[in-house]
């Protein structure tokens, strides 16, 4: 298997964390890099979007958002019934897995690019659309029959949250400016993208190393959950892609979106809306297991499945 070199940075960070290196990437750099990545991904999508009719996307978008909602609902049941977790913990974890990871999406895009597999820029639109709904479902599941949710505050928290603002803002800028208008910015937003992603992954490795301890305390169920869920969600993504007659590249991206779990928007939103949930569990599973799993094994797996399912269905 040929390795995506950016993944090596994640492993270096993980290793540095595990051997307790004094290597520390300042939190401010983490913030700056995440702003860069969100904006750049948005802009790339926006530029591509300019080549399509937005209306053509409405139906696929509805289908994608609809089927993706099955993920948090199913995850919640499994966490409650099999995992015997408390309602808030199950709801919070379900929200993380229903939502999406921008960096996992970026690694999948770069995986496709280095294999010369074409994918459409408008996939970023799904990325932006899939972030929010699962968070609302999570809060609903946590609070069912209790009332007391400040939905307005929650909606504001997420819709005005930095990931939506930057992704949607980038989409809009890319779309308004078009390929020619964006071109003078290409040197920063496109040429530097992969190197910046490498840095961010180094940092994610350091952070993930710290989360592993949390998870160890949580027991084996969550570990199995954190690997089983992306595989099942990835399959759901592939089926949805099949339904929408997506290309192989687009299918891999959609599967990755479904399979990925959030660790930027979800932790902050859940901390505020479902404070009784223990963040060590949701972040430990999402960042400590599912994120590395998707990077290293998941994406190649969804690729393999996408190629072979194509045959099966055809």
């Amino acid at each position, binding site marked *: 298997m040929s390795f995506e070199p950016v993944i090596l940075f994640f492993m270096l960070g993980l290793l540095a964390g595990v051997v307790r290196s004094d290597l*520390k*990437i300042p*939190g401010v750099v*983490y*913030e700056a890099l995440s702003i860069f990545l969100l904006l750049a991904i948005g802009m790339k999508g926006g530029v591509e979007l300019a080549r399509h009719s937005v209306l053509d996307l409405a139906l696929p978008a509805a289908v994608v958002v609809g089927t993706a909602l099955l993920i948090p609902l199913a995850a919640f049941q499994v966490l409650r019934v099999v995992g015997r977790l408390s309602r808030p913990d199950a709801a919070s974890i379900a929200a993380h897995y229903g939502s999406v990871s921008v960096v996992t999406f970026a690694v999948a895009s770069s995986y496709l690019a280095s294999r010369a597999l074409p994918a459409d820029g408008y996939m970023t639109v799904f990325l932006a659309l899939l972030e929010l709904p699962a968070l609302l479902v999570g809060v609903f599941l946590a609070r069912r029959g209790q009332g007391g949710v400040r939905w307005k505050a929650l909606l504001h*928290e997420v819709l005005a949250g930095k990931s939506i603002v930057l992704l949607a803002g980038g989409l809009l800028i890319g779309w308004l400016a078009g390929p020619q208008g964006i071109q003078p910015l290409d040197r920063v937003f496109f040429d530097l993208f992969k190197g910046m992603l490498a840095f961010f992954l180094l*940092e994610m490795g*350091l*952070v993930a190393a*710290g989360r592993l*301890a*949390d998870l160890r305390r949580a027991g084996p169920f969550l570990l199995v959950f954190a690997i089983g869920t992306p595989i099942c969600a990835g399959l759901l993504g592939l089926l949805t892609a099949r339904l929408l007659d997506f290309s192989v590249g687009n299918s891999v991206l959609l599967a990755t979106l479904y399979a990925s779990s959030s*660790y930027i928007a979800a*932790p*902050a939103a859940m*901390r*505020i809306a479902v*404070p*009784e949930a223990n*963040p*060590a569990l949701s*972040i430990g599973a999402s960042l400590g297991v599912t994120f590395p799993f998707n990077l290293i094994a998941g994406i190649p797996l969804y690729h393999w499945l996408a190629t072979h399912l194509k045959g099966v269905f055809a």
Partner: protein
Amino acid sequence: MSPAVALRKLVTIVCEADMESTLLPELARVGARGYTITEARGQGARGVRDGAWRASSNIRIEVLCDAQVAGDLVDMLQARYYADYGMVVFVVDAAVLRPAKF
């Protein structure tokens, strides 16, 4: 020291950085007229919070106020946030200038 000095309470709250947007309106609600925030990290009963990313960062909020507001503030934090959040609160006596300000 100058006659304008009077005793007030300095309430210091160390808590998760993500609580900022939730807590600040609460401070105003119990009558605090200002606050000062510094970025922090630390360790406590809920483990190490190393500041590597927002989800593991703390903030340290200081509020100068009179004893009444300090009491209300501490009670409010105790009632609404202590159970669910990593948080430490302590209160110190402080001599302030312009006591009418707090």
